[in-house]
């Protein structure tokens, strides 16, 4: 369980994280999404006390990370694969990390086997590929058998097999009742791995809900209508909450209105419909919309929905 309250980090005049409040719960895989510079890594570093919050607080299982008697048993963290001395072997690195908590060679051998590093464990880390470095970082995160696992971009540099392995591992750790918090810029990866999403944009929490809700929240209700009387139908539907995008003559896409309402209105006013399709967007699109809005927020005027390219929208049921 990770609880952040009004967490704020200011570097100079840049707000890396702005008043973020969220909870990461045990037993779930919580995905942490956001464009580069959104504040994900900063947040993760603050959780384990490497960066000091400018304001606000963050606790792990009710206590500040540094106040735990056995920090490595509380939180295992992969911040970046480069948090290792390049002149030391993977085995010695893990042994030194574990020694602080009285964790011995047996557990070191276990995490080396778990992450598939046996063949390179005695080699110096300086010669490791990005993928091997990532596996070592995950081995270090699991060393203390922690109740909370935090992984920053864990699939970075991994081959497809490694990606599947991380996904399976994250799901398994959550199934054991652990708190699993991982960041990724790969939305499709999150769709397959995470139960819950926290989306960050410009240091602010834009969404904090189950994966499915984030998508519908970002896409809203959207329908595609094909009708010889499209213009008339649109004039009947016009309202402050409804955004209209003309796709081609006779075809419009409407946001902020349900298919039911369009169908009812068309029937009651005698408009002929050739197509009425509820639209669901992919996770990438939902995410783009969310974060793009946060960028546009400062430029004045929220998005009207027309920045979503029609060809990225797919009929319901085709995604996920």
């Amino acid at each position, binding site marked *: 369980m990770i609880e952040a309250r009004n967490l704020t980090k200011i570097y100079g005049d840049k707000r890396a994280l702005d008043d973020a409040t969220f909870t990461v*719960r*045990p*037993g*779930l895989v919580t995905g942490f999404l956001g464009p580069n510079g959104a504040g994900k890594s900063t947040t993760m*570093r603050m959780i*384990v*006390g*490497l*960066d*000091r919050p400018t304001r606000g607080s963050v606790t792990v299982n009710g206590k500040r*990370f*540094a106040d735990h*008697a*056995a*920090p*490595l*048993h509380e*939180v295992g*963290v992969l*911040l*970046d694969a*480069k*948090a*290792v*001395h*390049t*002149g*030391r*072997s993977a085995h*010695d*690195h893990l*042994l*030194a*990390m*574990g*020694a*602080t*908590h*009285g*964790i011995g060679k047996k*557990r070191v051998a276990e995490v080396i086997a778990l992450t598939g590093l046996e063949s390179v464990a005695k080699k110096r880390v300086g010669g490791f590929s990005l993928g091997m470095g990532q596996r070592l970082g995950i081995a*270090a995160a699991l060393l*203390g*058998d922690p*109740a909370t696992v935090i992984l920053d971009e864990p699939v970075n540099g991994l081959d497809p097999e490694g990606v599947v392995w991380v996904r399976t591992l994250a799901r398994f750790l*959550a*199934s*054991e*009742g*652990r708190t699993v918090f991982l960041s990724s810029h790969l939305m499709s990866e999150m769709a397959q791995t995470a*139960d*819950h999403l926290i989306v960050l944009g410009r240091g602010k929490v834009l969404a904090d809900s*189950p994966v499915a809700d984030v998508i519908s929240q970002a896409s809203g209700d959207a329908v595609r209508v094909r009708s010889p009387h499209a213009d008339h139908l649109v004039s009947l539907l016009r309202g402050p909450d409804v955004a209209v995008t003309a796709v081609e003559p006779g075809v419009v896409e409407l946001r902020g209105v349900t298919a039911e309402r369009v169908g009812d209105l068309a029937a009651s006013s005698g408009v002929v419909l050739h197509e009425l399709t509820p639209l669901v967007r992919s996770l990438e699109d939902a995410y783009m919309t969310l974060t793009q809005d946060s960028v546009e927020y400062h430029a004045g005027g929220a998005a009207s929905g027309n920045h979503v390219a029609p060809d990225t929208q797919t009929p319901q049921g085709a995604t996920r």
Partner: protein
Amino acid sequence: MTATTPTRHLDRPAPPASRLSFGGVLRSEWIKLRTLRSTWWCLAVMVAVIVAFGALFSTSAGFFALDGATREQQQAVVAQSVTVGVVFGQLVASILGALVITGEFGTGMIRSTFTAVPRRGAALVAKLIVVAVTLFVVSFIGLVVSLLVNSAILPLHDISVDFADVALWKTVLGAAVSVAAIGMMALALGAIIRNGAGAIASAVGIVFVLPIVLQLFMTANDSVWLYNLNEIIPPNASARLYDYVVDGRSATMLPVPEGAWALEPWTALLVLAGWVVVLFAVAFALVKRRDV
């Protein structure tokens, strides 16, 4: 996704009963020190320079072999032959001390260290202890080897070595402590500066360059405070720590100006300890506050 929170499976390995302890942090820092090649290079070079400079000195010690030299004068030459390479040993020790911490900042290892040991002061103190003990033990061994080598060479110049001389062993001990102290200061500097090249340059500057600069000033200005400052800077205070002292008199010390400080080994030890404490306090305050 289910609404309920799953309970932990029984097959999850039982959480180890272990916890963070200072003994564990010390062990961790020792593992870290001994598992880097640079450590062994530094220690080997340190022993080599101490022994080599000592041998070089005693080989050319015929200069000192005056007829009728007292036992005390002979032992002073022996002490000098053993400690003549100490300043170079200190140089290597300062490189090792700085590398121990700047290597972690440079590679990002420091984030792993401070995640395992969130109370950063404990990690820093453990590093300091491990570096100090290692440098003391290894330089002591180097000095003893140097003494043995010199005891084989010096008789060629009619200088005999008295191993039972307590003052000689005090000199050896003081020299080993001075090496450890310089290494500790370099570690503190490394924690402050964080950059390897910068920290090593500063440490070398203090050990080698600062005395020369002060000497230049002193030739132009013979004020007592300048003399006193020169006396307490780390390299000179450490040299006082391994003075060969008999009956409270240093065999090598030049006459001091009126009213100026003249450090004896034990006051030199206090001065060095003061330097370590001050530098470490600054390092501690910065390391505690900074984001890493």
